[in-house]
Protein backbone atom coordinates (compact mmCIF):
# COMPACT_ATOMS: atom_id res chain seq x y z
CA UNK A 1 0.00 0.00 0.00
CA UNK A 2 1.28 3.40 -0.93
CA UNK A 3 1.23 6.42 1.28
CA UNK A 4 2.44 8.84 -1.32
CA UNK A 5 -1.04 10.10 -2.17
CA UNK A 6 -1.62 11.29 1.35
CA UNK A 7 -3.13 9.14 4.01
CA UNK A 8 -3.96 5.52 4.50
CA UNK A 9 -6.96 3.93 6.09
CA UNK A 10 -7.22 3.79 9.85
CA UNK A 11 -4.51 1.66 11.38
CA UNK A 12 -3.27 0.67 7.94
CA UNK A 13 -0.74 -2.05 8.11
CA UNK A 14 1.60 -2.31 5.21
CA UNK A 15 4.82 -4.16 4.65
CA UNK A 16 6.47 -3.76 8.02
CA UNK A 17 4.91 -0.47 9.07
CA UNK A 18 1.59 0.60 10.42
CA UNK A 19 0.41 4.15 9.82
CA UNK A 20 -2.17 5.66 12.17
CA UNK A 21 -5.28 6.97 10.49
CA UNK A 22 -5.60 10.61 9.51
CA UNK A 23 -8.29 11.13 12.14
CA UNK A 24 -6.07 9.65 14.82
CA UNK A 25 -3.14 11.82 13.77
CA UNK A 26 -5.32 14.92 13.80
CA UNK A 27 -6.55 14.01 17.25
CA UNK A 28 -3.03 13.49 18.60
CA UNK A 29 -1.84 16.70 16.90
CA UNK A 30 -4.70 18.57 18.55
CA UNK A 31 -3.78 17.14 21.93
CA UNK A 32 -0.16 18.12 21.40
CA UNK A 33 -1.35 21.66 20.77
CA UNK A 34 -2.38 21.98 24.41
CA UNK A 35 1.09 22.02 26.01
CA UNK A 36 2.45 23.89 23.00
CA UNK A 37 -0.21 26.55 23.43
CA UNK A 38 0.77 27.03 27.07
CA UNK A 39 4.46 27.14 26.26
CA UNK A 40 4.33 29.41 23.21
CA UNK A 41 1.35 31.65 23.89
CA UNK A 42 -0.36 31.37 27.26
CA UNK A 43 2.70 31.66 29.51
CA UNK A 44 4.47 34.43 27.56
CA UNK A 45 1.26 36.44 27.18
CA UNK A 46 0.46 36.01 30.87
CA UNK A 47 3.97 37.17 31.81
CA UNK A 48 3.74 40.15 29.44
CA UNK A 49 0.28 41.09 30.71
CA UNK A 50 1.55 40.84 34.30
CA UNK A 51 4.41 43.20 33.50
CA UNK A 52 2.22 45.55 31.46
CA UNK A 53 -0.31 45.82 34.28
CA UNK A 54 2.50 47.07 36.51
CA UNK A 55 3.58 49.74 34.08
CA UNK A 56 6.66 47.89 32.88
CA UNK A 57 7.48 48.44 29.23
CA UNK A 58 7.24 45.21 27.27
CA UNK A 59 10.15 43.82 25.25
CA UNK A 60 7.69 42.36 22.72
CA UNK A 61 4.00 42.87 22.13
CA UNK A 62 1.46 40.26 23.12
CA UNK A 63 0.12 40.45 19.57
CA UNK A 64 3.51 39.45 18.14
CA UNK A 65 3.84 36.58 20.61
CA UNK A 66 0.37 35.34 19.73
CA UNK A 67 0.91 35.52 15.97
CA UNK A 68 4.31 33.80 16.12
CA UNK A 69 2.91 31.24 18.56
CA UNK A 70 -0.03 30.38 16.30
CA UNK A 71 2.33 30.04 13.32
CA UNK A 72 4.63 27.69 15.21
CA UNK A 73 1.74 25.68 16.65
CA UNK A 74 0.13 25.30 13.23
CA UNK A 75 3.33 24.14 11.62
CA UNK A 76 4.02 21.74 14.49
CA UNK A 77 0.56 20.20 14.14
CA UNK A 78 0.87 20.00 10.35
CA UNK A 79 4.26 18.38 10.74
CA UNK A 80 2.83 15.68 12.98
CA UNK A 81 -0.17 15.02 10.74
CA UNK A 82 2.01 14.84 7.63
CA UNK A 83 4.64 12.62 9.21
CA UNK A 84 3.83 9.57 7.06
CA UNK A 85 4.00 11.60 3.85
CA UNK A 86 6.72 13.10 1.73
CA UNK A 87 5.62 16.52 2.92
CA UNK A 88 7.05 15.74 6.37
CA UNK A 89 10.58 16.84 5.45
CA UNK A 90 9.62 20.15 3.84
CA UNK A 91 7.14 20.97 6.61
CA UNK A 92 9.85 20.19 9.18
CA UNK A 93 12.14 22.62 7.37
CA UNK A 94 9.39 25.25 7.29
CA UNK A 95 8.57 24.83 10.98
CA UNK A 96 12.23 25.12 11.99
CA UNK A 97 12.75 28.07 9.64
CA UNK A 98 9.82 29.94 11.17
CA UNK A 99 11.19 29.20 14.65
CA UNK A 100 14.58 30.48 13.53
CA UNK A 101 13.07 33.69 12.14
CA UNK A 102 11.14 34.13 15.39
CA UNK A 103 14.40 33.87 17.32
CA UNK A 104 16.11 36.32 14.97
CA UNK A 105 13.23 38.72 15.58
CA UNK A 106 13.61 38.29 19.34
CA UNK A 107 17.37 38.74 18.97
CA UNK A 108 16.82 42.11 17.29
CA UNK A 109 15.01 43.26 20.45
CA UNK A 110 18.02 42.59 22.71
CA UNK A 111 19.01 44.18 24.99
CA UNK A 112 15.78 44.69 26.83
CA UNK A 113 15.76 47.96 28.72
CA UNK A 114 13.52 48.06 31.72
CA UNK A 115 12.68 51.30 33.48
CA UNK A 116 11.48 50.74 37.00
CA UNK A 117 8.03 52.33 37.25
CA UNK A 118 7.95 55.40 39.43
CA UNK A 119 11.68 55.28 39.91
CA UNK A 120 14.74 56.71 38.33
CA UNK A 121 16.50 53.41 37.66
CA UNK A 122 16.73 51.56 34.39
CA UNK A 123 18.11 48.12 33.78
CA UNK A 124 19.22 46.73 30.44
CA UNK A 125 19.51 42.99 30.07
CA UNK A 126 21.18 41.42 27.07
CA UNK A 127 20.17 37.93 26.01
CA UNK A 128 21.64 37.78 22.52
CA UNK A 129 24.19 35.08 23.33
CA UNK A 130 21.54 32.90 24.91
CA UNK A 131 19.24 33.25 21.91
CA UNK A 132 22.12 32.44 19.60
CA UNK A 133 22.54 29.19 21.51
CA UNK A 134 18.81 28.50 21.29
CA UNK A 135 19.08 28.98 17.52
CA UNK A 136 21.07 25.76 17.43
CA UNK A 137 17.80 23.89 17.93
CA UNK A 138 15.88 25.12 14.85
CA UNK A 139 19.11 25.07 12.85
CA UNK A 140 19.43 21.37 13.59
CA UNK A 141 15.71 21.06 12.84
CA UNK A 142 16.28 22.46 9.34
CA UNK A 143 19.15 20.04 8.82
CA UNK A 144 17.00 17.15 9.97
CA UNK A 145 14.22 18.26 7.62
CA UNK A 146 16.66 18.33 4.72
CA UNK A 147 17.90 14.84 5.58
CA UNK A 148 14.34 13.53 5.80
CA UNK A 149 13.49 15.11 2.46
CA UNK A 150 16.54 13.48 0.88
CA UNK A 151 15.65 10.17 2.53
CA UNK A 152 12.07 10.33 1.28
CA UNK A 153 13.20 11.27 -2.21
CA UNK A 154 15.26 8.10 -2.39
CA UNK A 155 12.88 5.68 -0.77
CA UNK A 156 9.65 7.12 0.44
CA UNK A 157 8.66 4.09 2.54
CA UNK A 158 11.98 3.21 4.11
CA UNK A 159 11.57 5.77 6.90
CA UNK A 160 8.10 4.53 7.73
CA UNK A 161 9.47 1.15 8.81
CA UNK A 162 11.14 2.89 11.72
CA UNK A 163 8.78 5.80 12.33
CA UNK A 164 5.69 3.59 12.34
CA UNK A 165 6.84 0.01 12.99
CA UNK A 166 4.14 -2.60 12.66
Amino acid at each position, binding site marked *: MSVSAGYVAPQSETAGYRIPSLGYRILVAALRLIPTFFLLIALPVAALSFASARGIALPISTYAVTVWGIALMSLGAARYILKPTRAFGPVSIAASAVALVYLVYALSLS*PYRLTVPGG*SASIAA*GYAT*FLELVMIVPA*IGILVGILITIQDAGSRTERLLFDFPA
Partner: protein
Amino acid sequence: MVVPTHRRPPPIYRLARALRWISTIVLVALIIFAGTVVYSAVQVARSSAQSRGLSASFAANGTVEVGGSFTLSNPGIYPIDGFKLTARVANSSGVNLGQIGVGPANIAAFSTGVFPIALYLPVATNGPTASLLTEDQYLRVNAWGNATYAYLFPLSIELSENRSWGAPFEGFAASVGTPSGGGGTITIPVTVTFSNHASFPDTGTLTFLIESATQVDCGGGSFSVAVPPGNLYDQTQDVTLSSGCSPSGGQILSTYSTGGTPISLPPEAIP
Protein backbone atom coordinates in the same frame (compact mmCIF):
# COMPACT_ATOMS: atom_id res chain seq x y z
CA MET B 1 6.38 -9.21 1.43
CA VAL B 2 6.99 -8.36 5.07
CA VAL B 3 10.00 -6.19 5.63
CA PRO B 4 11.60 -6.88 9.01
CA THR B 5 11.76 -3.71 11.09
CA HIS B 6 14.66 -4.87 13.22
CA ARG B 7 17.05 -4.22 10.41
CA ARG B 8 19.46 -1.32 10.64
CA PRO B 9 17.93 2.03 9.58
CA PRO B 10 19.44 3.75 6.55
CA PRO B 11 22.41 6.06 7.27
CA ILE B 12 20.51 9.27 6.48
CA TYR B 13 17.71 8.27 8.79
CA ARG B 14 20.19 7.40 11.54
CA LEU B 15 21.92 10.74 11.12
CA ALA B 16 18.62 12.60 11.22
CA ARG B 17 17.60 10.72 14.33
CA ALA B 18 20.92 11.44 16.04
CA LEU B 19 20.61 15.12 15.20
CA ARG B 20 17.08 15.16 16.53
CA TRP B 21 18.34 13.69 19.80
CA ILE B 22 21.09 16.26 20.01
CA SER B 23 18.58 19.00 19.28
CA THR B 24 16.25 17.75 22.00
CA ILE B 25 19.07 17.48 24.53
CA VAL B 26 20.26 21.01 23.70
CA LEU B 27 16.72 22.37 23.99
CA VAL B 28 16.08 20.68 27.32
CA ALA B 29 19.46 21.83 28.66
CA LEU B 30 18.76 25.42 27.58
CA ILE B 31 15.29 25.38 29.11
CA ILE B 32 16.70 24.08 32.40
CA PHE B 33 19.49 26.67 32.22
CA ALA B 34 17.05 29.50 31.52
CA GLY B 35 14.80 28.38 34.37
CA THR B 36 17.64 28.23 36.87
CA VAL B 37 18.97 31.59 35.67
CA VAL B 38 15.58 33.22 36.23
CA TYR B 39 15.30 31.63 39.66
CA SER B 40 18.83 32.69 40.64
CA ALA B 41 18.34 36.20 39.29
CA VAL B 42 15.21 36.57 41.41
CA GLN B 43 17.22 35.47 44.47
CA VAL B 44 19.87 38.09 43.69
CA ALA B 45 17.23 40.78 43.17
CA ARG B 46 15.58 39.89 46.47
CA SER B 47 18.84 40.13 48.36
CA SER B 48 19.18 43.71 47.01
CA ALA B 49 22.45 45.58 46.96
CA GLN B 50 23.05 47.84 49.92
CA SER B 51 25.26 50.67 51.00
CA ARG B 52 26.22 49.97 54.58
CA GLY B 53 27.67 52.07 57.35
CA LEU B 54 27.70 55.24 55.29
CA SER B 55 29.01 58.13 57.34
CA ALA B 56 30.33 61.59 56.59
CA SER B 57 33.02 63.55 58.35
CA PHE B 58 35.60 66.21 57.74
CA ALA B 59 38.72 64.60 56.34
CA ALA B 60 42.28 65.70 57.07
CA ASN B 61 42.72 66.93 53.52
CA GLY B 62 40.11 69.65 53.86
CA THR B 63 37.28 67.72 52.28
CA VAL B 64 34.19 65.98 53.54
CA GLU B 65 34.60 62.24 53.34
CA VAL B 66 31.58 60.01 52.78
CA GLY B 67 32.72 56.50 53.57
CA GLY B 68 31.20 53.09 54.04
CA SER B 69 30.82 49.92 52.09
CA PHE B 70 28.75 48.62 49.21
CA THR B 71 27.48 45.08 49.57
CA LEU B 72 26.15 42.87 46.81
CA SER B 73 24.95 39.40 47.76
CA ASN B 74 24.80 36.62 45.21
CA PRO B 75 22.71 33.81 46.68
CA GLY B 76 22.11 32.35 43.22
CA ILE B 77 23.87 29.42 41.61
CA TYR B 78 25.56 31.46 38.89
CA PRO B 79 28.42 33.95 39.24
CA ILE B 80 28.30 37.68 38.67
CA ASP B 81 31.32 38.49 36.52
CA GLY B 82 32.93 41.82 35.74
CA PHE B 83 30.81 43.73 38.22
CA LYS B 84 31.64 47.40 38.01
CA LEU B 85 29.82 50.35 39.51
CA THR B 86 30.52 54.05 39.19
CA ALA B 87 28.68 56.84 40.98
CA ARG B 88 29.09 60.54 40.34
CA VAL B 89 27.89 63.30 42.64
CA ALA B 90 27.05 66.80 41.46
CA ASN B 91 25.85 69.78 43.43
CA SER B 92 22.63 71.66 42.83
CA SER B 93 24.35 73.74 40.16
CA GLY B 94 25.34 70.64 38.26
CA VAL B 95 29.02 70.97 39.12
CA ASN B 96 30.69 67.60 39.50
CA LEU B 97 31.91 67.10 43.07
CA GLY B 98 33.45 63.67 42.85
CA GLN B 99 32.95 60.08 41.95
CA ILE B 100 33.45 56.65 43.40
CA GLY B 101 34.14 53.39 41.65
CA VAL B 102 33.62 49.79 42.63
CA GLY B 103 35.19 46.85 40.85
CA PRO B 104 35.60 45.35 38.36
CA ALA B 105 35.13 42.26 40.47
CA ASN B 106 33.73 38.78 40.19
CA ILE B 107 31.23 37.59 42.76
CA ALA B 108 31.03 33.83 42.91
CA ALA B 109 27.81 31.93 43.42
CA PHE B 110 26.58 31.76 47.00
CA SER B 111 28.88 34.55 48.09
CA THR B 112 28.78 38.25 48.94
CA GLY B 113 30.92 41.01 47.54
CA VAL B 114 31.79 43.79 49.96
CA PHE B 115 33.42 46.88 48.49
CA PRO B 116 34.69 49.78 50.59
CA ILE B 117 33.74 53.17 49.22
CA ALA B 118 35.11 56.61 49.99
CA LEU B 119 33.89 59.79 48.39
CA TYR B 120 35.70 63.05 49.05
CA LEU B 121 33.63 66.17 48.54
CA PRO B 122 35.67 69.37 48.23
CA VAL B 123 34.27 72.17 50.40
CA ALA B 124 36.75 74.96 49.72
CA THR B 125 35.14 78.36 49.38
CA ASN B 126 37.11 79.34 46.31
CA GLY B 127 35.75 76.52 44.22
CA PRO B 128 32.41 75.87 42.61
CA THR B 129 31.31 73.90 45.64
CA ALA B 130 31.47 76.68 48.17
CA SER B 131 27.83 76.44 48.99
CA LEU B 132 28.25 72.85 50.13
CA LEU B 133 29.69 74.12 53.39
CA THR B 134 27.06 76.73 54.17
CA GLU B 135 23.96 75.88 52.14
CA ASP B 136 21.59 72.97 52.42
CA GLN B 137 20.87 71.56 48.99
CA TYR B 138 20.10 68.49 46.98
CA LEU B 139 22.99 66.59 45.48
CA ARG B 140 22.45 64.74 42.23
CA VAL B 141 23.75 61.18 42.38
CA ASN B 142 24.12 59.35 39.08
CA ALA B 143 25.24 55.75 39.22
CA TRP B 144 25.75 53.20 36.51
CA GLY B 145 27.05 49.68 36.59
CA ASN B 146 27.77 46.67 34.43
CA ALA B 147 28.03 42.97 35.05
CA THR B 148 27.55 39.66 33.32
CA TYR B 149 25.24 37.20 35.02
CA ALA B 150 25.30 33.46 34.46
CA TYR B 151 28.02 33.70 31.80
CA LEU B 152 25.61 34.75 29.02
CA PHE B 153 23.56 37.68 30.23
CA PRO B 154 25.18 41.14 30.22
CA LEU B 155 23.39 43.58 32.47
CA SER B 156 23.69 47.30 32.88
CA ILE B 157 21.96 49.54 35.35
CA GLU B 158 21.57 53.29 35.56
CA LEU B 159 20.35 55.05 38.62
CA SER B 160 19.72 58.70 39.22
CA GLU B 161 18.46 60.29 42.39
CA ASN B 162 18.60 63.42 44.50
CA ARG B 163 20.01 63.18 48.00
CA SER B 164 19.58 65.97 50.50
CA TRP B 165 22.71 67.53 51.87
CA GLY B 166 22.76 69.23 55.22
CA ALA B 167 25.44 71.93 55.42
CA PRO B 168 27.72 71.75 58.47
CA PHE B 169 27.82 75.57 58.63
CA GLU B 170 24.33 76.34 57.30
CA GLY B 171 23.63 80.07 57.28
CA PHE B 172 27.15 80.93 58.42
CA ALA B 173 27.43 84.61 59.33
CA ALA B 174 30.22 86.59 60.97
CA SER B 175 29.51 90.17 61.92
CA VAL B 176 31.04 92.94 63.94
CA GLY B 177 29.31 95.13 66.49
CA THR B 178 29.97 98.66 67.63
CA PRO B 179 33.60 99.43 68.55
CA SER B 180 34.21 100.56 72.11
CA GLY B 181 37.06 101.67 74.33
CA GLY B 182 39.52 104.49 74.21
CA GLY B 183 42.99 105.49 75.14
CA GLY B 184 44.47 103.78 72.17
CA THR B 185 42.72 100.43 72.78
CA ILE B 186 39.60 99.81 70.76
CA THR B 187 37.68 96.57 70.98
CA ILE B 188 34.98 95.31 68.68
CA PRO B 189 32.59 92.43 69.27
CA VAL B 190 32.62 89.70 66.61
CA THR B 191 29.62 87.40 66.44
CA VAL B 192 29.58 84.09 64.58
CA THR B 193 26.34 82.18 63.98
CA PHE B 194 25.48 79.09 62.03
CA SER B 195 23.50 75.87 62.30
CA ASN B 196 24.97 72.44 61.91
CA HIS B 197 22.61 70.65 59.49
CA ALA B 198 25.14 67.92 58.71
CA SER B 199 24.99 64.39 59.99
CA PHE B 200 28.32 64.81 61.75
CA PRO B 201 29.46 67.23 64.47
CA ASP B 202 31.46 70.39 63.89
CA THR B 203 34.36 69.89 66.25
CA GLY B 204 37.48 72.01 66.13
CA THR B 205 38.55 75.61 66.02
CA LEU B 206 37.01 78.46 64.10
CA THR B 207 39.59 81.16 63.51
CA PHE B 208 38.66 84.58 62.20
CA LEU B 209 40.55 87.59 61.00
CA ILE B 210 39.26 91.13 60.64
CA GLU B 211 40.65 92.69 57.50
CA SER B 212 40.37 96.39 56.66
CA ALA B 213 39.23 97.74 53.33
CA THR B 214 42.90 98.09 52.42
CA GLN B 215 43.51 94.48 53.38
CA VAL B 216 45.35 95.29 56.55
CA ASP B 217 45.07 92.83 59.39
CA CYS B 218 43.10 94.57 62.16
CA GLY B 219 43.00 91.66 64.54
CA GLY B 220 41.41 88.30 65.05
CA GLY B 221 40.52 85.52 67.37
CA SER B 222 39.23 82.03 67.50
CA PHE B 223 36.28 80.09 68.79
CA SER B 224 36.31 76.61 70.08
CA VAL B 225 33.57 74.77 68.23
CA ALA B 226 31.74 71.64 69.33
CA VAL B 227 28.35 71.65 67.65
CA PRO B 228 26.43 68.39 67.45
CA PRO B 229 24.28 67.72 64.36
CA GLY B 230 21.13 69.79 64.33
CA ASN B 231 22.37 72.42 66.80
CA LEU B 232 22.73 76.18 66.51
CA TYR B 233 25.96 78.02 67.21
CA ASP B 234 25.94 81.65 68.26
CA GLN B 235 28.98 83.13 70.00
CA THR B 236 30.43 86.59 70.42
CA GLN B 237 33.97 87.55 71.21
CA ASP B 238 35.61 90.94 71.76
CA VAL B 239 38.62 91.60 69.58
CA THR B 240 41.19 94.27 70.19
CA LEU B 241 41.80 96.18 66.98
CA SER B 242 45.28 97.15 65.86
CA SER B 243 46.11 100.75 66.36
CA GLY B 244 44.65 102.95 63.64
CA CYS B 245 43.03 100.05 61.81
CA SER B 246 39.43 100.56 60.79
CA PRO B 247 37.38 97.51 59.89
CA SER B 248 34.79 99.57 58.04
CA GLY B 249 34.42 98.38 54.46
CA GLY B 250 36.63 95.40 55.16
CA GLN B 251 35.76 91.78 55.70
CA ILE B 252 35.92 88.94 58.16
CA LEU B 253 37.90 85.94 56.97
CA SER B 254 37.13 82.69 58.76
CA THR B 255 38.68 79.26 58.67
CA TYR B 256 37.58 76.07 60.32
CA SER B 257 40.21 73.64 61.48
CA THR B 258 39.54 70.17 62.70
CA GLY B 259 43.07 68.92 62.93
CA GLY B 260 43.87 68.70 59.26
CA THR B 261 43.94 71.20 56.46
CA PRO B 262 42.01 74.37 57.47
CA ILE B 263 38.79 74.90 55.56
CA SER B 264 37.98 78.43 54.47
CA LEU B 265 34.50 79.70 55.15
CA PRO B 266 32.91 82.35 52.97
CA PRO B 267 34.21 85.87 53.77
CA GLU B 268 31.72 88.20 55.39
CA ALA B 269 31.73 91.86 54.37
CA ILE B 270 31.83 94.52 57.08
CA PRO B 271 29.56 97.50 56.35
